[in-house]
């Protein structure tokens, strides 16, 4: 079953897996780990943005929340790091329930603004609660414990953490290609029709939001353990913005695009930092704007579109292509559905 499914697009999967395995040989291992974590974060965000049609601008709350909780568990309990990371993911999921409940019923830019506002509240709390979080200094001294193994080498940590990252990717892939994922895409493409078929769209969006947050928390936890600390920046809005940028850059609704976008942004940031460059934001921002202007579907999306139109074939499953136009894929607001004729 699973094998036959994998065989459907074997070249991409084999290439991706191969790259994931050799990455720390090609580039500085801590950077490789950063790419892996951000790639998972971007894919988790794409689950919402690309497949549900919801642009969240508050995912720093989940990535950062996962980072802090994983860090706190590791510092205070001494449990193996995967337990700490899973605790961070669970925390992110729980945090997403009230935030999602209050925001998924909003559309388009309102959803983005409200998620941003909630994430900034989380940032405020983390900053205030110094005793627990270390305030501006971040949470320092997070250990990497795994049954007494020596994980101090980033190269080793990468390979120990990789299965968790890959499990996160598999989860996103599974959700997108599940009956649930089919409903998400139908909500994205035509909310009114999904409702007319009897689907409680807000509850579906809420579950999508929680799943996306959980996987973002997983990524954030692995990131914090890898760095040995959780930074205040991880819950700041720029983190949300960076993740959105990665997805848009790579291609909304493509999953692979998020991976590509993450790799590009992390590499570029690293290059500029090592070069001692000052205004990193200006450079990445400019590149972002240029790429989005030239390749409307993002890099991956544009490449795939070219291949598809070249070969004239219809790709795989229905949700496999990006939603046309706006991130809020719902064409008709509830008021005034059915059109005045």
């Amino acid at each position, binding site marked *: 079953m699973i094998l036959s499914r994998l065989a459907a697009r074997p070249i991409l999967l084999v290439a991706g897996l191969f790259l994931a395995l050799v990455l720390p040989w090609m580039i500085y291992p801590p950077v490789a780990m950063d790419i892996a974590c951000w790639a998972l974060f971007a894919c988790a965000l794409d689950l919402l943005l690309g497949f549900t049609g919801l642009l969240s601008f508050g995912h720093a709350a989940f990535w950062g929340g996962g980072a802090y909780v994983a860090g706190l568990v590791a510092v205070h309990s001494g449990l193996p790091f995967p337990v700490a990371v899973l605790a961070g993911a669970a925390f992110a999921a729980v945090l997403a329930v009230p935030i999602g409940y209050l925001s998924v019923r909003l559309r388009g830019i309102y959803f983005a603004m409200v998620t941003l506002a909630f994430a900034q509240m989380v940032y405020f709390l983390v900053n205030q609660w110094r005793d627990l979080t270390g305030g501006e200094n971040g949470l320092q001294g997070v250990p990497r414990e795994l049954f007494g193994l020596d994980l101090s080498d980033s190269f080793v940590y990468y390979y120990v953490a990789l299965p968790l990252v890959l499990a996160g990717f598999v989860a996103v892939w*599974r959700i997108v290609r599940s009956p649930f994922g089919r409903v998400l895409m*139908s909500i994205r493409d*035509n909310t009114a*029709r999904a*409702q*007319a078929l009897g*689907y*409680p769209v807000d509850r579906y969006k809420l579950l999508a939001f929680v799943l996306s947050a959980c996987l973002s928390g997983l990524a954030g936890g692995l990131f914090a353990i890898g760095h040995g600390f959780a930074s205040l920046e991880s819950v700041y809005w720029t983190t949300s913005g960076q993740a959105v940028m990665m997805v848009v850059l790579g291609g909304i609704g493509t999953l692979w695009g998020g991976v590509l976008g993450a790799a590009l942004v992390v590499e570029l940031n690293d290059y500029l930092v090592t070069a001692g460059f000052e205004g990193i934001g200006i450079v990445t921002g400019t590149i972002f704007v240029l790429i989005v202007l030239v390749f409307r579907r993002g890099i991956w999306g544009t490449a795939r579109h070219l291949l598809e139109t070249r070969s004239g074939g*219809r790709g795989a499953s229905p949700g496999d292509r990006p939603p046309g136009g706006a991130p809020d894929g719902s064409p008709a607001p509830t008021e005034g559905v*059915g059109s005045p004729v």
Partner: protein
Amino acid sequence: MDGAVLRAQGLAKEFRGFRAVDGVDLAVAEGSVHALVGPNGAGKTTLFNLLTGFLKPSAGSIRLGEHDLTGRRPEHVARLGVARSFQITSLFPQMTPREHVELALASPTGLTWRFWRSHRTLDRHAARAMELLDQVGLAAHAAIPAGTLAYGHKRALELALALALDPRVLLLDEPTAGMGVEDVERTVELVRKVRAGRTVVMVEHNMTVVASLADRVTVLQSGRVLAEGPYAEIRHDPRVISAYLGDADAVH
């Protein structure tokens, strides 16, 4: 009227001061085909949107049998047994007709919450989906993206989706609009077939269709009920003739 399965009382909808539906009383008898006619802009689609929860009424109430539908969300109304088709075709362009109908069939089952299963589990509805598509004459086009279907086929898919919910009350908003004669005839036959065991409310401009299907007719104008009764009576009502039927006959 007793035996009404769907009943609206004093139903009104105001858009920024403009009353698109203005105090409509409607009682649809169980098992009947009830036609809703009236000139463009009369408020027929708005009335459908109110009945199915897509719009919240400014005033009035809606009942389905023993259920109060007033202010319910569209998905809830659908679950309680009121299915609708849209006047402006409303589909998922990238999904095939079969995938559409499978999704409709899966909606009451809970299968679609399973984010850990393969979407191929939806195939368990494939046989029934093909049956429904066959019924509306779409079997040959079951596997191409709905966005590429011909207009008449899109209308047929709208109908199949409403039927897939096996509704108690079926609301059809201009099911034959823009169809050629053959497709109109097929649709009439189909409605005749599927009305067994359910109630149908249809907005329809084609008076031949109304005459051959409808048990009762409600004429709407400027958001109000102008007349109500069997087609044979309605067609002779002078107010109706001047308001609507006269020029509808001229059109069709």
